[in-house]
């Protein structure tokens, strides 16, 4: 059938949903010896606990309201490390340039990378540059990899979610995905929607200062909040119950999604995290998050439950329920 047997790669394989997971599970993980290939790996090396992560950035357009591919590339890896509880220390930067791209554009992206690295307190220490022929890229592709130290007593993994955990999101969702869409497709929504691209290391530090016993942190990037919650539910074999009205969705994102027939729960974020916190620490962690600029709009959106393991279920505003599934591939705007 059309979606099952794929002799060739389709866009959905990079959408961060079910098809991406299957690609890794069926092709990469077996070839690499069965490792789990998490966004960020926790490693022990010479007695130190390190977090190690890599990410590639192929965003189009290169510049968008609230950022560009450069700060996205830095913050993306910084945040993946932060989700292991690690403050990023060192980054690498791989650059693939398309023949013909203006040098001023390369300069602006590099400046943005430098500024983002300084803001996140991380040093870019190694790199590589390649050029591909005109027509073989979208101007600039970036890869960043990073390492950082995981503090003693911190163990953040999706598998650690347990029934009773309180689920907290650090702020309003959907801004990055809608911001990108508004410039990529030339859609105008009456107000400018700005990406939330930001480094989350400081916010995570503030949370860990309350208790090192956070169970799970996850940045809901591609696939949005829905994908992040589903991955955690599946990894831990728990259910997640979400109160839909408690999920902070800015009105402009809600309106844009309503026009396009998209669900904000599936829209990408670049400066938000979702946390699974033991109930006894939840109030204190929430207060610490709200005291941080990047967590000012933090909200409890639900809880981890023993029912419906592996599934995320939302209570709708009207009082009904719905399953919030793992996205398949890319979200597609509806025809009408």
């Amino acid at each position, binding site marked *: *059938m*059309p*979606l*099952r047997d*794929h002799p*060739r*790669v*389709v*866009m*959905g394989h990079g959408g961060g949903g*079910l098809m991406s997971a299957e690609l890794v599970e069926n092709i990469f993980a077996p070839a690499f010896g069965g490792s789990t290939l998490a966004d960020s790996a926790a490693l022990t090396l010479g007695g130190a606990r390190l977090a190690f992560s890599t990410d590639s950035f192929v965003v189009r357009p290169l510049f968008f309201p609230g950022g560009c591919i450069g700060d996205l590339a830095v913050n993306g890896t910084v945040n993946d490390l932060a989700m292991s509880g690690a403050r990023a220390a060192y980054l690498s930067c791989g650059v693939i340039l398309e023949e013909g791209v203006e040098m001023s554009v390369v300069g602006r992206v590099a400046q943005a990378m430098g500024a983002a690295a300084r803001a996140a307190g991380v040093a870019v220490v190694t790199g590589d540059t390649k050029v591909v022929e005109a027509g073989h890229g979208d101007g600039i592709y970036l890869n960043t990899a990073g390492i950082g130290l995981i503090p003693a007593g911190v163990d953040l993994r999706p598998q650690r979610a347990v029934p009773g955990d*309180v689920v*907290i999101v650090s702020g309003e969702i959907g801004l990055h995905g809608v911001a990108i869409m508004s410039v990529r*497709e030339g*859609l105008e*929504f*009456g107000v400018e929607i700005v990406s939330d691209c930001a480094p989350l290391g400081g916010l995570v530090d503030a949370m860990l200062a309350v208790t090192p016993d956070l169970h799970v942190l996850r940045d809901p990037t591609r696939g949005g909040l829905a994908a992040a919650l589903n991955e955690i539910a599946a990894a831990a074999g728990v259910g997640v*119950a*979400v*109160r839909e*009205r*408690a999920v902070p969705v800015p*009105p402009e994102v*809600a*309106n844009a999604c*309503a*026009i396009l*027939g998209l669900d904000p729960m599936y829209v990408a974020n670049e400066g938000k995290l979702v946390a699974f916190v033991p*109930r006894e620490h*939840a*109030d204190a962690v*929430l207060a610490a998050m709200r005291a941080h600029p990047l967590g000012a709009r933090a*909200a*409890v959106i*639900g*809880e981890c439950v023993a*029912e*419906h393991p592996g*599934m995320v*279920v939302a*209570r*709708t*505003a*009207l*009082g*009904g*329920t*719905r*399953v919030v*599934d793992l996205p*398949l591939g890319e979200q*597609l*705007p*509806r*025809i*009408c």
Partner: protein
Amino acid sequence: MKYLEEFRDPELARGLLEDIRAAVTRPWALMEVCGGQTHTIIRHGIDQLLPEGVELIHGPGCPVCVTPLEVIDKALEIAGRPGVIFCSFGDMLRVPGSDRDLFRVRGEGGDVRVVYSPLDALRIARENPDREVVFFGIGFETTAPPNAMTVHQARKQGIRNFSMLVSHVRVPPAIEAIMTSPDCRVQGFLAAGHVCSVMGVEEYPELAARHRVPIVVTGFEPLDILEGIRRTVRQLERGEHTVENAYERAVRPEGNPAARAMLEDVFEVTDRAWRGIGVIPGSGWRLSERYRAYDAEHRFEVSGITTRESALCRSGEVLQGLIKPHECEAFGTTCTPRNPLGATMVSTEGACAAYYLYRRLGTPAALEVTPVG
């Protein structure tokens, strides 16, 4: 944009639900015509909140679902040709043809592009004079006017490398077909508000009178749906069968005259096959004689296509309201959004996809969320 939160207010919803409960004295079966309405109903759990006697039957109004397999196969054939740029709305890319979909064609090297407006396809044609640009023109009375306008513009601007693969469908003949089916259980209709915002309501009084069925023009937000149900049930309980407009903020009785004029200029009514249902007389539009040069079916030789529909898929019965999605044996097992046997499982407006996405769990009571925080 306003009018979003206002039409999702839980308190107002509760009031409407109480009105419906108070009004219902016996079972009623209502059909929401449009897939957008189905999506709202399932997405917000409205069907779970209605009194037991009120059953919602999901209608055929998903443009992606009803596009015939033969047309999808023609699209796949044209999109795979060298020199062609094939433009489509996004949700058509996943719809299975006989053996592949447009995503697969793109993966195989076809130039398939997602556009948000048919005018984008016309712009692409202008920018690529040495390529043939084809737009996939599907949908109901809602998407037909801008598509008609685009063909009109192409002719006016003398753009010769643009054509449209047209498979437009019309709602009133579908309602007629449903009501004349011997298995029909539908006692009232929630008509699709956006269709009426274009066409007005003048086609409906005769249908309502002849089939003795109330038709209430309804919008797409949760409160719109509940108000539509309330008015339909109230008519049924009183033994009335008239046309009511419960979507006055968008629908004028005469519709949109400019859009209708454009439709009349560019299209002509034709018999049209609906996927899973079959041919419904007078239920479609095709490009009229004056615009035939812009018809992709004429420009490209795509006849002689043999289609292969899944033998297991019962989407036709779902589209006619004869069964609910989960009553199909393949639902959720051999047929999922990951591996759809029919278009109703592919489109986000499709009843099967809506059931799969939102309704794979037991009773809502088992899902009570304990307040936290």
